[in-house]
């Protein structure tokens, strides 16, 4: 397609698209014909009729304009009033605006267009965050519309330093994105690095969140999430004021936060809504649950297959009694049930909610109980997998939960072939891997690995808010003081 703004070229190009409207409007007095260029369904037709089309038909001043240029000047100086009005000479930009829901008035002789933002498409209203609900705290969450999401952030940070940069990714989808940061707090090197990475994305379509995530994470081979997402505007605001950078993508009902560290993924908004001791206790329970869900199945395999002396005698005897007449080895039982557990989760996700509940009962209780009665698995293994599974759901971040679930398999296999020796190998590999991860210049295990004591006040324990005096050193090299 030729890169000249012309209605004929556009008509020819969109001749097979019925939703794209290219319609002439003849202004009788001066004999000038302009063309409306828009997408039906994305524009607010009522607003268009009232604010723009009426001007073209009944505005005497407009009818007095003898040239297209004069008409354009009149329109741009308030002839047809709207908040967003822009003259466009670039065909690509015109297409981008119109295909995102704006309307263009094309002036063929001038080879220019005037853009009006009268977007109006069906959108979901702001609702409670489904995955990050809290009892005490804000109940709003992001939706699929980028501009509303940036507004939700701006509502919470009224600083003049809050920057919302516009970016565009996807050769075909041309997805809008906003890079949000507080310019006098955020590390501009990191901002530039993220912006460069986004600009270098050469994909045709951003259809799922994973497309963006994979381009932004630094260590693509790692199972562990290196980018954090949240549905909560208050969480984004808190992280922005900590010096992190947010990425709002149109069409995705959550916002990404970078740089991301492991302790961040273990935090929940509830921690800060409660008394600091309650918040700290909840966080300690979360970390304990992570250890339980990660190691319990592997520990069971190692203890029942290799080093049974690790078990207290009563537990060893009860486990032994429970395992009588079960034809499979402990490793096969655990791995089999872990796989069954994953199947149940996957099946539950795909099914409608009402059927999903019935499925859970059927899978968890009926099949579990029947398997024990049929002596296919021992009751102890069912308990172990249930504890590990429930502990896994305590993770506030689903990506982290999934990573742990996968690593739980690896540890179980290592324990099956090497007992506690294998488990130790797996643990060492995990620690080495986590220590080696670096996220935009910040260690993944930061602030656990930081020397500065002030960084440790919001890690395993949540100190009272008055102790949060400094921002994380590695994320914010300058302007670290939060409060005195």
């Amino acid at each position, binding site marked *: 397609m030729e890169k000249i703004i012309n209605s004929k070229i556009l008509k020819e190009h969109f001749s097979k698209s019925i939703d794209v409207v290219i319609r002439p409007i003849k202004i009788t007095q001066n004999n000038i014909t302009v063309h409306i260029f828009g997408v039906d369904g994305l524009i607010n037709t009522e607003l268009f009729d009232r604010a723009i089309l009426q001007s073209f038909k009944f505005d005497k001043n407009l009818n007095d304009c003898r040239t297209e240029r004069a008409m354009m000047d009149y329109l741009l100086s308030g002839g047809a009033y709207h908040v967003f009005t822009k003259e466009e000479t670039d065909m690509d930009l015109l297409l981008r605006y119109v295909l995102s829901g704006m309307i263009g008035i094309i002036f063929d002789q001038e080879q220019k267009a005037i853009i009006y933002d009268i977007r109006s498409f069906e959108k979901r209203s702001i609702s409670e965050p489904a995955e990050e609900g809290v009892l005490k705290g804000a109940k709003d969450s992001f939706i699929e519309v980028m501009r509303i999401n940036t507004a939700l952030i701006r509502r919470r940070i009224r600083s003049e330093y809050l920057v919302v940069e516009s970016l565009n990714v996807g050769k075909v989808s041309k997805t809008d994105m906003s890079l949000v940061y507080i310019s006098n707090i955020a590390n501009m090197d990191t901002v530039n690095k993220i912006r460069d990475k986004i600009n270098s994305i050469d994909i045709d379509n951003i259809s799922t969140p994973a497309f963006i995530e994979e381009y932004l994470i630094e260590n693509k081979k790692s199972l562990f999430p290196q980018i954090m997402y949240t549905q909560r505007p208050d969480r984004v605001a808190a992280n922005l004021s900590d010096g992190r950078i947010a990425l709002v993508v149109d069409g995705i009902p959550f916002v990404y936060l970078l740089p991301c560290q492991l302790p961040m993924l273990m935090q929940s908004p509830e921690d800060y809504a409660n008394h600091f001791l309650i918040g700290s206790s909840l966080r300690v329970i979360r970390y304990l649950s992570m250890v339980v869900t990660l190691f319990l199945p592997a520990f069971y395999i190692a203890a029942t297959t290799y080093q*049974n*002396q690790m078990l207290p005698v009563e537990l060893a005897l009860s486990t*032994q009694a429970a395992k009588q007449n079960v034809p499979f080895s402990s490793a096969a039982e655990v791995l089999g049930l872990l796989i069954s557990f994953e199947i149940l989760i996957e099946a539950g996700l795909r099914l409608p909610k009402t059927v999903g509940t019935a499925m859970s009962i059927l899978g968890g209780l009926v099949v579990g109980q029947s398997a024990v009665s049929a002596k296919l698995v021992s009751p102890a293994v069912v308990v172990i997998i249930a504890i590990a599974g429930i502990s896994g759901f305590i993770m506030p971040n689903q990506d982290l939960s999934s990573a742990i679930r996968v690593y739980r398999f690896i540890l179980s296999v290592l324990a099956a072939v090497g007992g506690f020796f294998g488990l130790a*190998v797996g643990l060492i590999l995990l620690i080495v891997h986590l220590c080696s991860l670096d996220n935009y210049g910040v260690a993944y295990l930061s602030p656990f690995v930081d020397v500065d004591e002030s960084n440790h006040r919001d890690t395993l324990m949540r100190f009272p808010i008055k102790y949060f005096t400094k921002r994380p050193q590695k994320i914010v090299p300058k302007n670290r003081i939060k409060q005195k």
Partner: protein
Amino acid sequence: MKKIILLLLFIPLVLWGCSHDMNRRELDEISLIQVLGIDYSSEGYTLSGLYKSGGGTDSEAGGDSSSEEVVQGTGKTPYEAYEDLKHKHKKNLSIAHVGYLLIGEEAAKNGLNLCLDFLSRDETVKMELLIYVTRNSDALDFIKNGIEDKKTIQEDLEAISQKQQEFLTRNDNTLVSILNDMKRSHSSILIPYLLSEESGFLIEGYTVFDRLKLKDYLDRETSWGINFIKDIARSFPIYLDNGVGLSLSYSKAKLKSHLENNQIKVTIILDFETLIKEVNTNADIFSKEGLIFLTEEQNKYITKLLEKPVNYSLATGLDILQLARLVENQHHKKWKDFEENWPEYLYDVQYEFDVHSKVSKSFIMGNER
């Protein structure tokens, strides 16, 4: 990515290869011996192991359908007997869960080191397993009689060890403690002995070992005197002649040694506190004078108790109070002079007692006293 996949494949393969040396056995394929008995006769050693068998929990009946069984093996040495035991039993045996080791009287007389050597070299054995000597009985008979009388030996022994913890601050008859004591050849080793009664098993006192061989059994009072001197007494009843019963609530013992011209002087310092538990007298014991009287009386009572092991040590020349360690620690340079003929010096040790105590009133409901 290839490296990660290779690593993930390589590690399990290596571990799989190593697992042959890792004693891989499913828990249900092993019989877990919980109580081990060692006996000795002219034919050699007999090792008897008590384990639970019989298909485990009956979920429908809601109970435990397992039963206690004994397996035995014989051999010239305890290790040979253990191998015989393993050979005879249909399942694999594990001594990793042995909580109690019963040493028969004859085996104890033949030498403690012979009984414990193979256990101390097994990497799976629990260091905190408790050792008892079965007085006037073989360990096997002790276990068998227990099973015939439908006693649950394991549970009875557990009750005994819990009772020990009620009266003592620590159990000194663990495998690791005994092995440590065995390294000090100058002192006698003390292991509690068990008596089989109709109602169950009882611990009466300590067995005294001389040069790792059973020498004597101490009575209850002498054994308690040792507990006080070893500073492991937690609770102890005191019955005074005037009808007042007291209970020990705190005790702190310290031994000091002085050397004068190859003469060893030992001062036993004991501070303790008691609570009044029973008053069967009309005398005003809660007055200042009454409490002073009670204090003096309980001091005498405990001093008498302390004199028992002291007198036993003086009479037999056995170092049941672990004085060798005391002198070695407090007079390290001069210890070498005593080391060679240590038992001879024990007959001439001079003991002094420095006993202090305090009586606390106990709360009493509905009574002014």
